[in-house]
């Protein structure tokens, strides 16, 4: 029998060991999948895990993919601490891209340095507004935010499609469902010459610092932590539950919206129906792998970006479908959640045959 016993304090050793164990188990499982797909295991392993870490192109793309994941996950982690489950970051990401992108498209013939900040502002507002719907319905009508944010994600995907087929379609684009290509003033500055790595990564790092400060050093961090772990105590302490819901949803929505714009005005360069690629959902995994710790999120977003790159490489060189990425990401989270039990609990294997 497996005997699980609660620890009095979480084990510091296990905080480090659990993710390593989860990674190892994921690596072993991927090898089994490679074997089953009758691939050269060592080569597949190289393509998936090592190749993304080599060369200018791969490394810069790692930053491109880590930036939106980090930004969204930081916002989500604040809400998850408070027990506010914003699962629809993907939707807020899309609305952010549309509202910020629309500003850029409106000024398509204006060359000015204020344009990108204005677009970013619109994107944050868009993302906040969209998440705000869930906050309003939760605080006013006690409607579960998980379902609302998710349903709104499907609505946002359709709305993006309606926009690029309609009002935001490129008038000179031969009726293709895509917007104009953002001009130079409406495109993010590049931080690594000759690559697509953009300023969004630096901004995401700054947000990681700010989030760390808020959650660890500021009263608000204390408030959301208690609201999440002991709602009754939070109420007695005079913390306003509705305020926590509003703040956490607005923060996560705003960051997701900004991430959406950075993707549109960064590597993609225009509004297209396939702009959302699931970063909003994957960021949930990123946040959990980091155990909701802001600095941890910096590393886990790079790790998950690696699985995206690995998946793309595997698609090109091994002819594996790109969906293998989500398989590995899901598996990693499963193993990680299971290994997490080691942090808060002692696990003993006992064989008591008489029982």
């Amino acid at each position, binding site marked *: 029998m497996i005997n699980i016993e609660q620890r009095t304090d979480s084990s510091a050793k296990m905080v480090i060991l659990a993710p390593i164990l989860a990674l190892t188990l994921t690596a072993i499982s991927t090898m089994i999948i490679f074997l089953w797909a009758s691939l050269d295991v060592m080569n597949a392993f190289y393509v998936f895990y090592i190749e993304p870490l080599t060369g200018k192109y791969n490394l810069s793309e790692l930053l491109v993919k880590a930036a939106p994941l980090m930004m969204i996950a930081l916002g989500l982690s604040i809400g998850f601490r408070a027990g506010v489950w914003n699962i629809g970051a993907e939707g807020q990401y899309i609305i952010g891209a549309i509202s910020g992108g629309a500003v850029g498209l409106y000024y398509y013939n204006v060359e000015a340095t204020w344009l990108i900040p204005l677009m970013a502002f619109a994107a944050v507002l868009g993302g906040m507004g969209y998440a705000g719907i869930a906050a309003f319905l939760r605080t006013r*009508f006690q409607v*579960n935010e998980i379902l*609302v944010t998710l349903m709104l994600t499907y609505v946002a995907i359709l709305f993006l499609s309606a926009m690029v*087929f309609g009002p935001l379609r490129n008038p000179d684009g031969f009726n293709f469902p895509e917007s104009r290509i953002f001009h130079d003033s409406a495109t993010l500055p590049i931080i690594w010459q000759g690559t697509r790595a953009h300023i969004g990564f630096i901004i995401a790092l700054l947000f990681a610092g700010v989030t760390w400060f808020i959650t660890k050093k500021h009263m608000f961090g204390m408030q959301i932590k208690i609201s999440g772990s002991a709602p009754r105590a939070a109420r007695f302490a005079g913390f306003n539950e509705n305020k926590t819901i509003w703040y956490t949803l607005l923060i996560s929505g705003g960051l997701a919206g900004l991430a959406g714009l950075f993707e549109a005005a960064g590597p993609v360069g225009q509004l297209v129906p396939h702009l959302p690629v699931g970063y909003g959902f994957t960021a949930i995994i990123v946040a959990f792998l980091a155990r909701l710790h802001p600095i941890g999120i910096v590393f886990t977003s790079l790790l998950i970006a690696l699985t995206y790159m690995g998946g793309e490489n595997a698609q090109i060189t091994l002819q594996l479908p790109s*969906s293998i990425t989500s*398989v590995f990401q*899901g598996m990693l*989270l499963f193993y990680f959640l299971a290994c997490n039990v080691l942090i808060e*609990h002692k696990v003993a294997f006992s064989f008591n045959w008489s029982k």
Partner: protein
Amino acid sequence: MDELAIQIILGISVASVPLIFAAIGELVVERSGVLNLGVEGMMIMGAIIGLVVQYHTGSGLLSVIAAMAAGMLMASIFAFLTQLFLTNHVATGLALTLFGLGVAAFIGKNYSDITVTRISALHIPWFSDLPVIGSLVFGYDPLFYLAILMVFLVWWFLFKTKRGLILRAIGDNHDAAHAIGHQVIRYRVLAILFGGGMAGIGGAYLSLVQVPMWVEGMSAGRGWIAIALVVFASWQPFKVIVGALIFGGISILQLHAQAFGVYIPAQYLSMLPYLMTIIVLVSLRIGSKSNTNRTMPNCLGKVFHSTS
């Protein structure tokens, strides 16, 4: 009754079947105090496995059983993690959905250009030939009748049997149920497996009856709508049918809207089922006086850890 009306009613019924399956499974899971947000992932696995087995064997019965098994296999991952390893229900359920969508897309890559034989409607001699009633009551595929039967069975189990009573007691207070000697984990694991099996069949209905082919992400949020349906039904089995018919109705009316001369871009019409889900959840809260939902199982989503 004219032909169009009959077509619409048939369409609504067919559209609501996957929701009934998935929601009635999740209802039992939630009644036992477990919140499994992996319904979407289990459904899509049922859809692809059902299609693969149908393609290779051509046996409708075998493919439905395989889809059920696929859903249960997915659910067993969830059961293992949440019940044995005490993981957070929300996080594990989300992982299950993401994992399921990925695995299904992975398998489905080789089956994207094929169509399979649709599971056809029953033909009951004489009854199915009756005018109007023949097609509206006796003209469905076997799974349609199974869905209705499952709702009855779940109602009977939950409210008319001792084990159903125990399951509900566990959902309302797992510590008390454990203290008087009930096997909390065992009941919950079985409930989760049942939920997975039902979601799997619901998924198979999409790929074997509604559209007999594979489209990546073809569950399109129905797993999530099913979870909303359980809330809408206030955890009462029969209300699941009412809710499913409403959602089925909206998704069919959206298809027929153009026929009625409604000219708005298709994307806005496709938003209706999702918006409707939100509207229904809100109107439910406006209608009720108390601030909390009284029928909701008290231990829903809480991790159970026995200390003895």
